[in-house]
């Protein structure tokens, strides 16, 4: 294992992020605050009732959406960071250096995906702290919370990496996040519990992979979930596995990397 190389890619990627750390942190914090104002205060106050949790405890709508918002940020930031991270050297041509270095594909992925996941986890934690300023937030299962945070950030950074390799223009880089990830996240129970939907839509919602991520993550906070925690964890691992298989395949064939 070329650990120095992994570390080098990781540090290089992180330093790229820290160069623009102001914008990197400020914009997600502002947009999350806006979600709180719009959904939490304006719409949430109309809900009137609280949503039930473990042992008869209830949470307010404002608190309810916190895990969903963190998930939303985690998914979008992971894919955006990782896709840009690998697309940019492809675009500028500097990828020649990585391709001619004595690094294995696993090491390249570890460096890029590790850095992208770190960034989105840091943002997720910042949003958690921001949310705490607006509404009471408590975490019932902190270990599970960290586990879901890591798995989701890792999985969607891998997805971002795949998008970054596939994209041959800046438009394509935006295409998947805009057309697939954002809609799935909004429809995935970020702002509501699945049981609030009409029965048909409840069934359809179960086809949305993001439902399982949000549900599991929310369970780790309040003990409330749409689906069982085992199923959430299982589905998360399935996505992770699928992304790993695709990445392995990309490197085996040299897809969009080698002629």
């Amino acid at each position, binding site marked *: 294992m*070329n*650990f*120095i*190389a992994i*570390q*080098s*890619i990781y*540090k*290089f990627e992180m*330093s*790229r992020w820290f*160069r623009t750390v102001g914008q990197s942190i400020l914009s997600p914090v502002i947009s999350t605050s806006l979600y709180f104002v719009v959904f939490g205060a304006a719409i949430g106050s109309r809900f009137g009732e609280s949503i039930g949790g473990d042992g008869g405890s209830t949470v307010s709508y404002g608190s309810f959406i916190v895990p969903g918002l963190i998930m939303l940020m985690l998914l979008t930031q992971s894919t955006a960071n990782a896709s840009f991270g690998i697309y940019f050297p492809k675009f*500028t*041509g*500097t990828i*020649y*250096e*990585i*391709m*001619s*270095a*004595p*690094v*294995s594909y696993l090491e390249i992925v570890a460096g890029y995906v590790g850095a992208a996941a770190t960034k989105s986890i840091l943002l997720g934690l910042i949003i958690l702290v921001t949310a705490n300023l607006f509404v009471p937030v408590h975490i019932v299962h902190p270990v599970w919370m960290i586990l879901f945070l890591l798995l989701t950030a890792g999985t969607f950074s891998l997805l971002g990496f795949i998008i970054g390799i596939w994209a041959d223009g800046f438009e394509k880089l935006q295409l998947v996040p805009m057309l697939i990830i954002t809609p799935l996240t909004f429809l995935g129970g970020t702002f509501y519990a699945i049981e609030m939907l009409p029965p048909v839509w409840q069934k359809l919602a179960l086809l949305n992979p993001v439902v399982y991520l949000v549900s599991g993550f929310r369970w780790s906070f309040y003990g409330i979930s749409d689906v069982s925690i085992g199923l959430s964890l299982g589905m998360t691992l399935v996505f992770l596995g699928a992304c790993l298989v695709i990445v392995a395949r990309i490197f085996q064939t*040299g897809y969009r990397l*080698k*002629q």
Partner: protein
Amino acid sequence: MQPIISIQGISKTYRPRGKVGAFQALKPIDLEIQNGEIFALLGPNGAGKTTLISIICGLVNATTGTVTVAGHDIVRDYRAVRRLIGLVPQELHTDAFETVWKTATHSRGLWGMPRNDAHIEKVLRDLTLWEKKDNRVMMLSGGMKRRLMIAKALAHEPKVLFLDEPTAGVDVELRQDMWNLVRSLRAGGVTVILTTHYIQEAEQMADRIGVINKGSLILVENKAALMHKLGRKQLNLRLHQKIETVPGSLAPYKLAIAADGMELVYVYDTEAEHSDITMLLQDLATAGIGFKDLVTKQSSLEEIFVGLVREQK
């Protein structure tokens, strides 16, 4: 001496995705590069020079054939191979927003080498980039970016350095610096393979020259041997009268008949101790062959090269 790079039957066919028509950029090539030499791959644009070195460096998959570097297969044993190799591509691909120092240390890190600030400093000083170490790469001039690319390739102390068109778009002074650098690298035991379409560059720097055209390696020779050819001169004698055959008395000169019998061509070596021209002219007079004019010309490497390239067409 064991060759450091051994290329056997390497070929490359590009098959564009979704389009018809494959393009064979390299026809099967065999070549050995000796340890510690400067080898110049000379050829026109699009000859396949970059494809060949891209295969060795792991940027392009070969269609057929194998390459070993210091006995390691470039595919099976890619780590061992790539540790030995530094690549300076033709295009200026740089991380515009990073500093000179950071990109150079990053390159060393990618090769898995432990941090060594003294080495990076030496490389940057050698390439007169030390003053610019804290500047962002985008602030550098084109020539400095070119040198930075070399610094990055040298950051991990390679044993084999590939320079793809190192002096393309580089001014005369920098070109001289570049040549001096290559010579000092060779003195330090580094094998250098450079591609160029400047014959002068190959002539100035290389120990051996390989001429490549349309994907075929058409000639590999010591520069000395090529220079020997360069040292040859040709004497054309325009005759008064047409001749059919060369008289037997002139056989030792190996004359050739040209221009439908109106010319005799004599090739001789100016570097030989005795030039035979006086004797030839005397013998011509004895044989009764008169000439009205004579022209001598020297064949240049350029001519040899153009001749070789033309032969292929």
